[in-house]
């Protein structure tokens, strides 16, 4: 067990219909693998990847649904304390896109108010089977105030970008909040780590 050091730790949670490639995205990003035909991910709770952004070590803890999305039975506790949500659909599957509002309702109900949501259309390697146009998705994401990106876990298109951009956004959000928070004197025990103030704020 190595001593770890990192400047930020974020919990990122994936949701979306079964079979849209959530696990593939995570495994592509964390391990550089694309496992074709892999079944449900047994025994894997979440994956970790530490990335460096502008000299700062950011540890991303990426949580998968553990198959509970299959019958729309994700536990509320899954959403608790997530910093970001990746809402995924399959561009070759209209149904997975049409289910998005339902997922949004769930986020709305259970996630934290400050969660960043990214809409991801996966499987762009199957462009000839596309059922959901980029424009529709872009309009939808705009209306919902989400970031939007299309990826291919298979070809590794935009996968790094997805997570790295997200990490950047999370860092800047965290910074902003630090600045805001610093105005008032921190309340002990109310979610503030003083060290963050000193490391991020006073420079």
């Amino acid at each position, binding site marked *: *067990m190595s*001593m*770890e*050091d990192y*400047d930020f*730790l*974020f919990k990122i949670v994936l949701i979306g*219909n079964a079979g849209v490639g959530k696990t593939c995205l995570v495994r592509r990003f964390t*391990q*550089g693998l694309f*496992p074709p035909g*892999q079944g*449900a991910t*047994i*025994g894997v*709770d979440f*994956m*970790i990847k*530490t990335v460096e952004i502008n000299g700062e070590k950011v540890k991303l*803890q990426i949580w998968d*649904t*553990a*198959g*509970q999305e*299959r*019958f729309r039975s994700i*536990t*509320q*506790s*899954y959403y*608790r304390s997530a*910093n970001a949500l990746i809402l995924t659909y399959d561009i070759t599957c209209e149904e997975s896109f049409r289910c998005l509002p339902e997922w*949004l309702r769930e*986020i*709305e*109900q*259970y996630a*934290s*108010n*400050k969660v960043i949501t990214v809409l991801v259309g996966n499987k762009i390697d199957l462009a000839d089977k596309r059922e959901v146009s980029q424009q529709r998705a872009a309009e939808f994401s705009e209306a*919902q*105030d989400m970031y939007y990106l299309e990826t291919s876990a298979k070809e590794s298109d935009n996968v*790094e970008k997805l997570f790295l951009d997200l990490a950047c956004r999370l*860092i800047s*959000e*965290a910074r902003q*909040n630090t600045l805001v*928070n610093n*105005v*008032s004197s*921190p309340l*002990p*025990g*109310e*979610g*503030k*780590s*003083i*060290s*963050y103030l000193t490391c991020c704020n006073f420079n």
Partner: protein
Amino acid sequence: MADNLPTEFDVVVVGTGLPESIIAAACARSGQRVLHVDSRNYYGGNWASFSFSGLLSWIKENQQKADLSDECEDWRKLILEDEEAIPLSSKDKTIQHVEDFCFGDQDSAEGVEEAGALPKLRVLGALAAQGESPGPEKESPAEMGIALGSQESPAEMGIALGSQESPAEMGIALGSQESPAAEVSPGSEKENAAVGSPGEEPQGCSEAARAAAGDGAGAAPGPGAAPSTADGDSAPQPAKTEAAPSENAAQEPKKITYSQIVREGRRFNIDLVSKLLYSRGLLIDLLIKSNVSRYAEFKNATRVLAFREGKVEQVPCSRADVFNSRQLTMVEKRMLMKFLTFCLDYEQHPEEYQEHESSTFAEFLQTRKLTPSLQHFILHSIAMVAETESSTLEGLQATKKFLQCLGRYGNTPFLFPLYGQGEIPQCFCRLCAVFGGIYCLRHAVRCLVLDRASGRCKAIVDQFGQRISANYFIVEDSYLSESTCTNVCYRQISRAVLITDQSVLNTDSEQQVSILTVPPLEPGRAAVRVIELCSSTMTCMKDTYLVHLTCPSTKTAREDLEPVVQKLFNLNTEKETENEELQKPRVLWAVYFNMRDSSGVERSSYAGLPSNVYVCSGPDSALGNDCAVKQAETIFREMFPAEEFCPPPPNPEDIIYDEDEIEPEESGLNNSPETKPETSAEESSSEGGAAVTKEE
């Protein structure tokens, strides 16, 4: 989502309450194929927690009790000749006498809707009542958690149980409390800085946590243990600063209206069952052992209170508390310490209590050198046993248990899960799912199918008429039909939930989690347990308190509990109330209900159940969760005597996929990940994941 359920499992679990969820997790963990279903659209059954609007729907549902005789018996056709059907009940009859009261202006709340997490959605839906909707700049200071990387998690202020990778990493890991490294002295910012440092410290904490969790009784329990605490709340820091940036903080408690409660309804997580976790109870042990603790975060109960001579007072229970107490005289302090020290190892001194073994604990206390107030504290707030019934030994055991739990995580023996008790079953469900368990809410089971020849249950038939076979079946009591339960005698639990505007005992900090036992107001009644939760437990909105009252029923919940509510709270909506009433917290909203207590039902009293069908009970009325954990473990061991019960899963950071696994699984089920206790996972992933260890 026209996905069909698989039709073959090893274990089918019906109901998602705590014992069922633990069993499901244990089974999946040991490699069984588990199907876990619940006919409701939420997890937890009677262990669930709800947002405010969710609770209102639950109330409506239970008040209407629409007796739909929808018993469509089509499924009977699916039963073969050599089989027999054991029908399950489709109606939940465990909740009765639901009465809710609003003490504010309910009309003003008309048209007000719950605000969601996504600001844009709200605007889109034009939900927000214009002008009333809190603008973003106003909203942010109200946030509980303060966003700082992982810090964003509100759970920050909580305790993460023994887990090194919990999102609340910066929080304090359960088990680490005993180690000096993790000790946070309330209010001291310097020490906070040391603990929260993003560098090596968190790891340090968790190492300590693991060590502490591993060898269990590392530090001496009891009043002697350091009163370390994870909550800075006991610091004399007025929470008013929180509101400072946006509003000129009003000094008096803010007046919360009903429409505010509705709008902030999402902030409520209202438990149907009110419990706390004993810090050395079976549930904490299981959470740590199974690593399910990583899915939840906890907060210490901060105060133990007593109700004596019409007043609420704080009970000193740790050694530090006793010494610092201003309400006790020096003599009393000495008496109390002496008695508590004796209780810690009373078994060693049988001569002290032997002659009182046949009397009650209350009588025994009278024989000790204790003042009436000390006797009251010990009997009602520490031992929490019945005055007229509990024997000396029961009282001593209970006192000892309380004392042993002190100091592990703070200066009370109890923890409360952030977001409510309803999180806990879900956490076990997550573990089950991670190990391949299949989850399906809103899925009713019509009947169990009994194979006449073997006398065993071989399948269930679900609401779609689909037959699903398995070797073992776990069914929660409320799903059993009346014919199965004709001989069963159930007890009832009386419950009340109040939303109030002030704490029952105002002190320097608003953020308190308190437990109070109110002795029976008249003979023949039971003591009432009151648990008051503050907003930082993530169970109620800012400037409110959530108060849970619980007792074994003698009558309807309202009849049992309203007298206590009247003693402690101000129920008047009018402004012109007497001075005395004004000092009491005002009740803004209340609900009463009776819940069936199916714990302690002998298996033999259920009629006609095959031996491979196991029954789990609903919540019991006790404070702790030992009953559910014991039941789960017992059932699991009966089914799988050779298997370990919820062993620790591999650390996600140590899981390495080798190339075998990338091949489409030829060997069927054998796709369990390799586990290596090396650091290579971290390293390889940091480098972009190019390096993957290959086995052969």
